[in-house]
């Protein structure tokens, strides 16, 4: 271990923990600023998200969304790409789920529809990521900017489609018709009544999300493609020199990323809303950025971070009932602070922590 390098547990445990602690400390200060008691707020938040079956159900429901969008951002991270377009990709991914459900819900049971919905959402999400990916790979236009643009284009496109072709005939609401039983995933409460999830919309897509985590772990760390993705992300020049095609790597990575983001729609559309409606993504795509940063782009970290954000979303809803001053906007503030401290200011505490750990080891080296 050379000078300035830190033990692994410090690098992967202590520093992220310190960053997170800072984010939550500042969040606490915001709560104080509003004139509420932060400890009481934490108590309500924990109780609301984990204190009873239905609360846990909602936490897991939100977490399912965040696992998909977090994985999407993380996969792109590994190739050194920043996919800000999860929001748009998930929105368009909703089309894939909807087509599958509208076509099949009368004819077949849900377990036949599900594979089509998965493929449909992944294809649509991937398609929405394709142009930014292709432009980055071949024309050098930055994927961050193009994916931002595509978020807005997706939003316009979906509003247009939901107001014209997809609208339920005779309805004023910009949404499709409600799916029949063949287009609805079973709620976990019906599958495992003993957990007492109550009316929480957590559904079988949670298992799809967990399966995606395993597959992504296998892909990134156990396949040739994953090795290429990581090599390209670590040092693009070296990767190209080693014969890895940049165009292929960028495009494939972004397609996987977009597909994962698109699959978020399974949880929302097929699992909970049972119809396609405007703005169903409502920022979950962006939360994926915070989740991926916090989870250090590793599936295990992402699951943990997704559950934490699920707790924030569910507990935050509870909190806004109990403390009307703390509206749900507080979650957005916390999200911003997590991204700030775990992402942009990730190196802020590193010099101090390095100093803390170096002298003792230097002494130990002398004694040896």
């Amino acid at each position, binding site marked *: 271990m050379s000078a300035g390098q830190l033990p692994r547990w410090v690098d992967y445990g202590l520093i992220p923990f310190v960053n997170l602690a800072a984010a939550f400390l500042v969040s606490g200060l*915001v709560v104080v*600023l*509003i*004139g509420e008691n932060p400890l009481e707020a934490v108590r309500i938040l924990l109780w609301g998200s984990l204190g009873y079956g239905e609360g846990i159900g909602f936490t897991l429901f939100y977490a399912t969304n965040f696992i998909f969008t977090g994985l999407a951002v993380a996969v792109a991270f590994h190739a050194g790409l*920043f996919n*800000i377009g999860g929001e748009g990709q998930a929105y368009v991914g909703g089309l894939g789920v909807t087509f599958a459900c509208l076509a099949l819900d009368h004819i077949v049971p849900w377990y036949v529809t599900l594979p089509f919905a998965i493929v449909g959402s992944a294809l649509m999400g991937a398609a929405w990521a394709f*142009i930014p990916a292709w*432009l980055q790979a071949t*024309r*050098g*236009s*930055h994927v*961050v*900017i*193009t994916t*931002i*643009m*595509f978020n*807005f*284009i997706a939003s*316009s*496109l979906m*509003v*247009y489609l939901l*107001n*014209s072709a997809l609208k339920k005939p005779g309805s004023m609401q910009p949404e499709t018709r409600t799916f029949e039983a063949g287009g609805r995933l079973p709620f976990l409460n019906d599958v495992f009544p003993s957990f007492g999830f109550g009316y929480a919309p957590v559904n079988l897509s949670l298992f799809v999300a967990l399966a995606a985590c395993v597959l992504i772990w296998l892909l990134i760390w156990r396949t040739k493609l994953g090795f290429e993705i990581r090599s390209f992300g670590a040092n693009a020049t070296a990767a190209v020199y080693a014969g890895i095609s940049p165009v292929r790597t960028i495009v494939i990575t972004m397609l996987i990323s977009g597909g994962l983001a698109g699959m978020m729609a399974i949880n929302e559309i097929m699992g909970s809303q049972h119809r396609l409606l405007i703005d169903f993504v409502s920022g979950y795509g*962006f939360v994926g*950025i915070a989740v991926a*940063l916090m989870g250090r782009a590793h599936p295990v970290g992402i699951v943990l971070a997704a559950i934490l954000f699920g707790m924030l979303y569910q507990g935050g809803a509870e909190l806004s009932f109990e403390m009307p*001053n*703390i*509206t749900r*906007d*507080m*979650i*957005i*503030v*916390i*999200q*911003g*602070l997590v*991204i*700030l401290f775990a*992402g*942009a*200011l*990730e*190196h*802020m505490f590193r010099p101090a922590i390095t100093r803390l750990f170096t002298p003792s080891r230097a002494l130990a080296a002398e004694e040896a």
Partner: protein
Amino acid sequence: MFETLILILDSTVRLSTPLLLACLAGLYSERSGVVDIGLEGKMLGAAFGAGAVAYVTANAWLGLLAGIGVSVALGLLHGFASISNRGNQIVSGVAINFLAAGLTALLGQTWFRQGGRTPALPEGGRFRDIAWPYAEQLREIPVIGPLYSELLSGHNILVYAGFLAVPLTWWVLFRTRFGLRLRAVGENPAAVDTAGISVAWLRYRAVIACGILCGFAGAYLSIAQGAGFGVNMTAGKGFIALAALIFAKWRPANAMFACLLFGFLDAVSIRMQGQEVPGIGEIPVQFFQALPYILTVILLAGFIGKAVPPKAAGIPYLKERS
């Protein structure tokens, strides 16, 4: 027909002003090598600060000052993260957008209890439209009359400030020593450092300039164009400004034309709502809304010229390699 055109152009000017101010703001930052996708957040923060202070003090100028203060503070946060701590500039920008969106709504609700909005501004809290001399008398003259009294006259002071900021920015960037160094630090910071000029201090000044202009843009939304702050009132304008900046290839005069173009599209889409175009039928509003983004993507793809960003944009500067 002519009258309609004048009306559309008039609202083009009003709609492009906030884009222009934010676009020029981004120009300072990105020319110095600091990528800023937090324009949206800074504008939103400024709009809130301006709306809140203008309501409390009933003074539009104090409101503007507060807006600038909020925006510069967010800019310094961006600087602290991306210049001092060499963090990822995109991540920092995303964080600022979230912070602004959350904090404005949260504090707005706590302070004013109107669902996150600030109350309607009192007299004096808002920048009023300025009528140019003889605007009323000249109105009747054909062609020149409407041009003068509708298009040139009758805007608030921030509109004129926005358009004056274009030559000013050009002069600062291309005719002063500061501007030369600012552009240099965005292309080759190591060379600037070798010349004994502080890269960090230059970039901090660029970030502050960016904050000031974003402050104007935000204040325009809440206390000049509108009469109070509304939740998420920027509604993506910061990102359109970013698109305009790319579209303008990071040049001040181009920035003005790009913003006017995007403002024009917006004005047309409002005008066209529910109207039939002969031969084509009704064009969906969403098409016009998406057009700025589509055009920017096409430009980025290199099909209309090529947009080459400042060379060092997005790369934190490390003084020494150890």
